């Protein structure tokens, strides 16, 4: 007969689960509301999600305070790991979600927002991402990853269009493949070390001086493929533009930010100890991956005719740029990663929201996609404010100072410089010049061409007050970023440094 297991509740430290539980409770309560009284307006669900996300954020900020005082908090049989980067990335995830969820409040009706399930799936997804970053247990990472991804596939498909189904199925298939790679990688790591905890694996591998290096390399190859899919690194990026094109602009913008930061954090946990212990092969692969992702995605973006696809390629390129932080691996670089992503989320939020407000119900005859460049021609004459806003977001994405992303860019390039990666720093800088061209192309269309006939009715069609507010928030965040950079840097450095990265 088995002994009864005795675990004191206090040792579980259930508080570490609180942020995720808040999101899950929020998701369930929305289902309950729907059971009790159906057919409620979407604005209710948006506000309920916002409230729960606010609670979630409050819990995280609280954890931030605890972390600064007492250091890393472990919980639930040491599976939960609330260290600095877990807290930081969760704050970015939750804050990013809070900025994106009001985009559901369009003035036109959209099919997907009539289902309360949409919002509860959204919160489940956030809980999934939070689990993914707040642990170094490979199994829990997997569980979090799959929870989030499955919810996300459904959200994409709910945007009732043929292209959306295509996108969802494509994403699902690719995601399943990535999950398979991940499972193989985790399996091999478990086989050679007997543990599924990344820090244990690191210790055990270091203790026997990487005698199983062959297996480590195979495991790492699988892991790189898995995260390559999730972070859309070239050559695993092929799904990205199609999925972005198929999903609504609001969700595409969301996908370009939140899932990726979760991916970065896991990649940071998994790859950094390998990079630091001098696994040269991994360094070379990462180096090539970073450079190819940045450059190739930029070159593909040059030839796109649709703004949304261009932004999809551009976000691949930005992800490659930030991936350099994991290769460089210094505290400064990791700080740069979070800074860059925080600034990037504001600018990209603005850019995708500008597309979202111009969303058409039906394509015009002869129009090949939702947001061709021509749609924006001469916008400065018809809608000067909107054109200036969009121009601002494009300049920020191109890295023109003093707008948001510039500061992230110089900090990242600065970290490459101080870690001795001179060539990488130059490649990063010159890629910004290539990228300048396609962002400029949109500005050229907006400011220097004559308006096209036929699109007038679609400008700002969905712009409700809350959408305009979001654009305003994004614009203020982009223009005045310079004043936010110093406090952000100080906080992020503190968190990252104290987590040992």
């Amino acid at each position, binding site marked *: 007969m088995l002994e009864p297991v005795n675990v004191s509740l206090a040792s579980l430290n259930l508080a570490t689960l609180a942020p995720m539980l808040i999101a899950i409770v929020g998701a369930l309560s929305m289902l309950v509301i729907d059971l009790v009284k159906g057919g409620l307006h979407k604005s209710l669900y948006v506000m309920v999600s916002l409230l729960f996300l606010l609670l979630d954020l409050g819990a995280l900020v609280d954890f931030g305070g605890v972390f600064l005082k007492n250091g890393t908090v472990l919980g639930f049989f040491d599976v939960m790991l609330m260290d600095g980067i877990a807290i930081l990335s969760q704050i970015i995830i939750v804050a990013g979600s809070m900025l994106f969820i009001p985009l559901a409040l369009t003035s036109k009706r959209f099919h997907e927002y009539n289902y309360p399930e949409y919002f509860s799936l959204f919160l489940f997804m956030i809980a999934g991402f939070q689990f993914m970053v707040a642990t170094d247990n490979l199994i829990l990472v997997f569980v979090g990853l799959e929870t989030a991804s499955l919810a996300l596939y459904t959200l994409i498909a709910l945007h009732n269009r043929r292209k959306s189904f295509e996108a969802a199925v494509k994403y699902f298939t690719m995601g399943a493949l990535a999950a398979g790679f991940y499972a193989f990688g985790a399996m091999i790591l478990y086989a050679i070390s007997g543990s599924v905890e990344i820090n244990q694996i690191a210790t055990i591998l270091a203790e026997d001086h990487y005698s199983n290096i062959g297996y480590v390399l195979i495991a790492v190859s699988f892991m790189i493929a898995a995260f390559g899919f999730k972070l859309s690194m070239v050559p695993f990026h092929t799904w990205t533009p199609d999925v972005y094109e198929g999903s609504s602009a609001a969700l595409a913008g969301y996908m370009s930010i939140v899932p990726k930061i979760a991916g970065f954090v896991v990649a940071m946990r998994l790859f950094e100890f390998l990079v630091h212990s001098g696994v040269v092969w991994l360094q070379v692969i990462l180096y090539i991956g970073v450079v190819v992702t940045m450059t190739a995605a930029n070159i593909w973006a040059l030839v796109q005719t649709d703004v949304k696809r261009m932004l999809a390629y551009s976000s691949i390129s930005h992800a490659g740029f930030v991936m350099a932080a994991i290769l460089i691996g210094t505290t400064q670089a990791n700080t740069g990663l979070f800074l860059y992503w925080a600034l990037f989320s504001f600018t990209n939020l603005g850019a995708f929201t500008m597309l979202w407000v111009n969303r058409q119900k039906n394509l015009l005859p002869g129009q090949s996609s939702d947001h061709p460049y021509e749609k924006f021609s001469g916008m*400065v004459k018809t809608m000067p404010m909107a054109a200036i806003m969009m121009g601002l977001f494009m*300049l920020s994405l191109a890295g*023109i*100072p*003093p707008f948001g992303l*510039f*500061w992230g860019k*110089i*900090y990242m*390039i*600065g970290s490459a*410089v*101080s870690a001795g990666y*001179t060539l990488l*720093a*130059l490649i990063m*800088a*010159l890629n*910004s*010049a290539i990228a*300048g*061209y396609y962002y*400029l192309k949109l*500005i*050229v269309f907006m*400011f*220097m061409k004559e308006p096209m006939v036929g699109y007038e009715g679609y400008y700002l069609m969905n712009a409700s007050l809350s959408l305009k507010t979001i654009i305003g928030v994004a614009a203020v965040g982009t223009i005045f970023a*310079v004043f936010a*950079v*110093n406090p952000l*840097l*100080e906080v992020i*450095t503190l968190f990252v440094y104290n987590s040992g990265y």
Partner: protein
Amino acid sequence: MMDHILSLLIFFPALAAMLGFVVRQDSIRAYGIAVAGIEFFLSLWLWYAYDPMVSGMQFMEAAPLIPAFGINYLLGIDGISLFIIILSTFFTLIGIASLTETRRVKDMIITLLFLEMTMVGVFAALDAIVFYVFWELSLVPMLYIIGAWGGPLRIYASVKFFLYTFAGSLVMLVGMLFMAYFYYQATGTWSFSILEWYRLILPENFQIWLFVAFFLGFAIKVPMFPFHTWLPYAHGQAPTIGSVILAAILLKMGTYAFVRFSLPLFPDASVFFMFPIAIIAIIMIIYTAMVAYAQEDIKQVVAYSSISHMGVIILGTFALNVEGVSGSVFLMIAHGVVSGALFLLVGVIYDRRHTKLMSEFGGLASVMPRYATIFGIMMMASVGLPLTINFVGEFLSLLGFYKQSHMLTLTAGVAIIVGAIYMLSAYKKAFFGQVSKEENTKLKDLNKTELVGLVPLVIVAIWLGVYPKPVLEPINNSVESVIQLMHDKAQSAEAKERIPNLSESNGIISMQEAH
């Protein structure tokens, strides 16, 4: 108020531009002139309050921006930047006052005011990142001016202008980050302050690499041969006001940056690259003069002659002694006045005839005597006639370089004189002889608006040609401290020898005076 005059000078036009969105289309010109006028008087007041005897920075302002990464909001001016700032406010005023553009005038004036902010910002910044911010930001209004109001190829020209300069300055940015990192290694704190960087002595091979990185950014802006290909397009397609500001101010950012960054930060590298750059400068002078001679479009003649004279500025800068550098800084002002005026003059005839081909003109002197007179004076100034503003700068630049190399200076001098041919021949084609075209007989001479823009430029061109001291003296004082700093920092024997030591020679002069 004098404590924050530089911030005021930078942000006043930007703030005014924001408010300008509210002003109605039909009143915007008066608003623009008023704002630019106030800004110009502020800059004159700056000159009045400036102490010409002090060689260091004045009106310094400092505020932390991103102290965690060593980025601070640092402003300050010395004799080198003072006059370029006045030139910028002057040309913005003249540009707006003589604006003949009728399409979407409001957008144009708001853009010009934003451009004024970036121009003043570049020349007043003492922190490399603040400098970079304004440097890059200045591309955006100019992109819009060329792209929205330009000729048929305007989009190609504006995008080419933007991408060329953007690519070059990104390499410069990497150079700046390296500089800050070396400073971090030496002192333990990050800093982008140029004055702090001045104190840093780098090994020669580091200097050479960093010099190249900065050089790419600056040389594309100037533009130096072989990076000049964007400029003829930009000038050819830009509206008159765009060409005026581009030639008079934006190109000076490059030459100014050489004096502010390259020389004092990398004295050994400057000596190392002195002759290669001088040769490029001379190629620039001769080659663009030849190209100018072959042009049929009068605006292109002016554009290429403008590049040609930029070569003389570079030559003077890399003389690395007081005469040469002072001369080149003075020539920056002179070149701004003269080429700005020439572009304005070309704009006048373009407004009347809607063509810039010289074959369409001929005998204009009899139809438009005032126009021909002013064009003639400015053209003479451009070829460097004594008693005009360009002469002072060109003479000093060549004198400075004569101390470094006799042969190269002689080549350059001959090239400048020969270069006068194309200007004179262009003038002859357009203004002398019989009136060959029917349309030209009824052309109106300069009107009041145009005279308001041109007469002050003529006055400045002659006044500073006859009596350059009020401008030259403050420039000279500040340049002396730059050269002394370079001499003190130089490590190689050759650099010590090439860059004169002023504290000694000053002593000798004062002893002679005592006798």
